[in-house]
């Protein structure tokens, strides 16, 4: 009998390990049915932040239940907006970290920002403020942000049409800094309204823009403004490669890749394109390049920016700002 008692005890010991389960199955009933209340108000982790030196800021708040939330940071001078969304019962560093980037252009400036926390399913709105001491600095090769006016190393051609306005302007609508390049006019005999040649030689006399040779890692970024009431603007960027490095671009034997952008939106928009995705365009139609067919991003000698419009479409207008090459990813302003 002892044998059986021992055996049964052994079986019990083997399998009778009590389990404790602190998890729950399914969504929290409290989250689904409980009363919403703010247990801890919205606050910034620091009052002022220097994004240029790598500082970040995050926001904290605590609610009585898991809720959908929208966080909106608005630059009080620039009007820049950064939004974050989530579903949780608190805001913390992992859910609301801000490194100075923007969701909707313009880019944040050195300015005070209003932070609003709203809840789609609740009437509450929580507000806090944070001061940007230094705006975020974007790494990359800056072609121009037009803050220093028109570079003397560039060349341009402007048609003599009606209401022509190709110049650097300064006003509050600039998506970055205070200035941008305005392009406007009516040319009823030609698609071309005006153009600017951004030459590599304008940047210290370099034979080509100082970019990585890996065209898969090189991104071209530009902010373009679409004017309300006009959707006829086409902005064409042409990238001339000096493949043989003789200081001259030969259209017959060297590659020129292009990006044509139809400006059919209103307001500022960031356009980013990987250099290796660019194609050769002939009258807007992709065609085989005339050179080696290799995207030699380290041999771009000149970038031509052409503002085009159908001559029958009347007045055309758009704006440019913050033309910049970035590496390893598109610009996150």
């Amino acid at each position, binding site marked *: *009998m002892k044998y*059986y008692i021992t*055996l*049964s005890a052994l*079986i*019990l010991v*083997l*399998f*009778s390990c*009590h*389990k404790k*389960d*602190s*998890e*729950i*199955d*399914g*969504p*929290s*009933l*409290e989250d*689904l*049915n*409980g009363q919403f209340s703010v247990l801890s108000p919205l606050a910034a982790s620091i009052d002022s932040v220097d994004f240029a030196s790598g500082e970040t800021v995050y926001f904290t708040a605590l609610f009585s239940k898991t809720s959908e939330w929208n966080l909106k940071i608005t630059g009080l001078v620039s009007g820049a907006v950064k939004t974050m969304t989530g579903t949780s019962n608190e805001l913390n560093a992992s859910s609301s970290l801000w490194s100075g980037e923007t969701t909707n252009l313009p880019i944040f400036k050195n300015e005070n920002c209003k932070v609003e926390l709203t809840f789609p399913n609740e009437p509450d709105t929580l507000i806090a403020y944070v001061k940007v001491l230094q705006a975020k600095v974007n790494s990359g090769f800056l072609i121009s942000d037009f803050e220093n006016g028109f570079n003397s190393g560039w060349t341009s051609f402007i048609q003599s049409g009606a209401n022509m306005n190709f110049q650097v302007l300064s006003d509050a609508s600039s998506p970055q800094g205070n200035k941008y390049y305005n392009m406007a006019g009516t040319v009823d005999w030609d698609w071309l309204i005006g153009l600017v040649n951004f030459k590599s030689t304008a940047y210290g006399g370099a034979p080509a823009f100082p970019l990585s040779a890996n065209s898969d890692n090189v991104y071209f970024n530009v902010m373009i403004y679409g004017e309300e009431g006009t959707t006829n603007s086409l902005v064409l960027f042409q990238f001339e490669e000096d493949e043989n490095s003789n200081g001259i671009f030969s259209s017959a034997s060297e590659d020129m890749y292009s990006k044509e952008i139809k400006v059919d939106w209103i307001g500022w928009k960031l356009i980013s394109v990987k250099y290796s995705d660019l194609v050769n365009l002939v009258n807007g139609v992709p065609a085989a390049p005339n050179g080696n067919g290799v995207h030699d991003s380290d041999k771009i000698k000149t970038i031509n920016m052409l503002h085009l419009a159908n001559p029958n479409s009347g007045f055309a207008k758009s704006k440019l700002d913050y033309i910049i090459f970035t590496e390893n990813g598109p610009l996150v302003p």
Partner: protein
Amino acid sequence: MKALLFIILFSTGLSAFTQEGKKVQFVGGARSLISQSDFTSDVSDTVTARKTTGGYALIDLGFKINPNENTEVLGMIRINNQFGGFYGAGVTFDVRQIHVKGVAGKVLRYQIGNIDYKLTPYTFYNHNPDLLVQSLGINKIKEEVLNYESFYKNNNWRQQGAAADFAIQFPKLIQELKFNGFITRLNPSASNVLERLYGGGNVIMKQSKYLTIGVNHVRVFDLLQTADNDNAYRNVVNSISYDLNKDGEKIKLSLDGESGMSKSFSTQNAEGGLSDFFIHVKGQVSFKKCGLKLKMAYMENGADFRSFGAQSKRMDFNQVNSFYERYTNSQILRPLSYYDLYNDPSLYSSSISTKIMSFNPSINNVLPYGIATFNRQGFYVGFNYSDPKKIIAADVTFYRLGEIRGQGTTQLRSFSYLTSTVSFNLSNWMHWKKKQVLQLGLAYQETARSSQFTFEQINLKSLTASLGLELEICPDLYLLGSAFLFSSKGNESMPIRTPEGIIINFNEYLVDGREINLSSGIKFNFSKEVYLAAVYESNKNNFSAENPYKYNQILLYYIMKF
């Protein structure tokens, strides 16, 4: 090695196949039912046909062929003629069952085709978690019909596949090792649905008459490359079962149980699967002289324990009725009532589901998937009594269980469940020759969850009670009577699950209703396997407070087995 072991021939198998040396036998059954129903609801209803007449006559005709003494082939067809159908209209022909079985090499017993199979209560077992009280009288007739229709017998599942078993006997240390194995098909492959099979088996070691230990294994598995899908599902259950007993002159002691674990996952997300374990141990003491048996058990079924062969329900509570499916002028769906479970055999199926099936918390919230219900821990105690004069027999069990993991909250549900059946054999008491039996059945359940928040609080009480009477008034002529009461009141928070079983939300379940069924009838036994019964019943249901209803039925059964 001599006499070390020898393989058993199967005791009942061979001779049973060739009864009286007949090579071909006819087996099967026949049944006829004629019903007249009168349905009324308390609200205005000029759309629903108040009175309906229906019924059918069917015959299950099987050919059992024994080409040799070791082989049996069975094919059974069903001819079903709906009441009022003649000359082909309303007549259906179906294959009801087909199998081949036999003994290979005087060693291996096999069966191919339809197999009735079970292993252990936690691996592969057809629990009956919804008909909580035992039936007698008219309800017994109805339960026998639905059990026959779905092949529910001895907690077996009727599946299509193959099974085999053999045993080895030893002269020392171990008396016998028995090996059982099966494989069935759960679903065929389709365009992107993989072929799903269910298989397993066990090895049962009978050490002596005192000790038996089994090692059990079942698994649901998809066969890769049978469809355009690389994500195969797996559900694996392993367990050890044991039965230890000491049979004395006055007292018999026994300790039995089963413990094991399960793992469910998809091959492309093996880490995201579920795994858990279960424990079930039961001790029993039998006092032989007085006919009293006491039992006490502890069970702990993990929240993520999944064993679809043991957790599939006989019926899906999401389906709709076929009897007065809609009623009222708005033609609303008539929800499944408890008594529909007795009335309508078409509600049941014999499929193993690999999804967590829905259940009615009013009927069984404590163990909706039988004793293998996941997320339960606690104990149960009970007794079984049968007096030496066979006048009274009682079977009472009380469960006190709780959840292991909360649903939507860390607060846990607690469950109380009392189930009892008491039978009075009046014939033995009064020393009458004719059979006179009265049976009372009761199942009472309480579910509670306390919390500081009202929306987390649960309080649900359900009562199922039945009374059955069989009085033999003259030889082979019985007076039958049944009363059935089901009431439920309270609230529950019912989980809404994805097809994968993940809870994504909860439905508030509120109930306050009662269903009463009273019936009486007569039954005449032509023989042990053939009888005719005429029944009148009245059913009243107010689970829908706005649309209560009642119906009366006259039923005429003719049932034959051969």
